[in-house]
């Protein structure tokens, strides 16, 4: 059903927008976009055109359409995984190289599609190689190396990576739940809170020693926020309770303030560590007779 849009400057949207700024800190561009979604189209076309060419052509055509659809889906997932890899400072390479697999499946689908159109094996093979190569050129290859910070213990980085993965899973289910409420303002508010949480995640990734201090924030509190969001979304989707919405917004504001304060404290601690290291180095240099001033 169509919904009337009410932004900050709309006649009905102003009162609600006075208290809280629902805009996210920074707009996030979807890593998939139209380019990977459009790849589903040739599969559909092939499925339609394979009818009318006999049973063999139909079977080959449908198999080709399925293979192309799988390739398009893998490409989409590969782009998402790549964006997540680049967003983190410490990350493992994707377990399954989805984009490269997508290239191979584009080639395989092209062979099946060509054979369904009565082309020979040679022509089908040529088209397959060209298709796979073009796919690889257009979408690139998956990240093949783990990303880590220099000078930080690998065991600690693994611990951090695990906690970050769990936190990201909580954030994703939180977003999935709030979408059920079907309120763009709430979605933007949750997105803003999530950006604050992600800032804390990046801080912990940079200095894994902060993990102990931030563990409750990235585990228990986040799980609580997720559960509260799920319950709120169910209530709000049922009867649009303004009281529940107000309580939930307050909860998000409180949480966000706490996460911001904790992240600042973590950063301050890192600065103190730097100051200590500078003092120690100065002392040593002075003992050696070197003056920095």
């Amino acid at each position, binding site marked *: 059903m169509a919904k009337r849009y009410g932004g900050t400057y709309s006649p009905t949207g102003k009162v609600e927008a006075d208290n809280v700024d629902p805009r996210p800190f920074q707009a996030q561009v979807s890593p998939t976009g139209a380019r990977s979604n459009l790849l589903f189209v040739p599969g559909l076309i092939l499925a339609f055109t394979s009818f009318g060419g006999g049973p063999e052509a139909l079977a080959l055509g449908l198999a080709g359409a399925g293979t192309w659809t799988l390739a398009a889906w893998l490409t989409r997932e590969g782009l998402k995984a790549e964006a997540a890899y680049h967003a983190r400072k410490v990350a493992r390479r994707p377990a399954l190289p989805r984009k490269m697999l997508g290239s191979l499946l584009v080639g395989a689908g092209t062979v099946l599609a060509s054979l369904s159109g009565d082309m020979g094996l*040679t022509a089908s093979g040529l088209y397959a190689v060209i298709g796979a190569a073009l796919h690889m050129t257009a979408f690139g290859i998956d990240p093949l190396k783990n990303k880590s910070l220099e000078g930080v213990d690998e065991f600690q980085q693994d611990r951090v990576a695990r906690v970050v993965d769990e936190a990201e899973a909580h954030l994703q289910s939180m977003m999935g739940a709030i979408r059920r409420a079907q309120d763009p303002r709430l979605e933007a508010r949750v997105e803003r809170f999530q950006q604050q949480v992600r800032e804390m995640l990046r801080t912990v990734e940079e200095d894994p020693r902060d993990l102990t201090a931030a563990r409750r924030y990235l585990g228990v509190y986040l799980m609580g926020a997720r559960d509260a969001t799920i319950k709120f979304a169910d209530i709000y989707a049922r009867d649009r309770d303004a009281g529940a919405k107000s309580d939930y917004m307050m909860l998000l504001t409180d949480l966000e303030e706490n996460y911001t304060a904790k992240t600042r404290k973590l950063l301050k601690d890192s600065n103190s560590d730097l100051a200590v290291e500078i003092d120690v180095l100065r002392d040593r240099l002075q003992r050696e007779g070197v003056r920095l001033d």
Partner: protein
Amino acid sequence: MARLIMLLALVAVVVAVGAIAVAVWSSGDGAREGKLNNVQKVAYLCLFAVMTGVATGFLGAE
């Protein structure tokens, strides 16, 4: 027939090596932001044309 297979293998090797080279070269800052560079844009358009052409029968054996 043998010449055709040789041609196919040669095209396969050249195209695959070229594709990998471009893919590796393109995985810079633009890729991190999810943007396509000009080579990738052209490759994407060609890919879409090949797939649609094969699906509709526009691209034939000859």
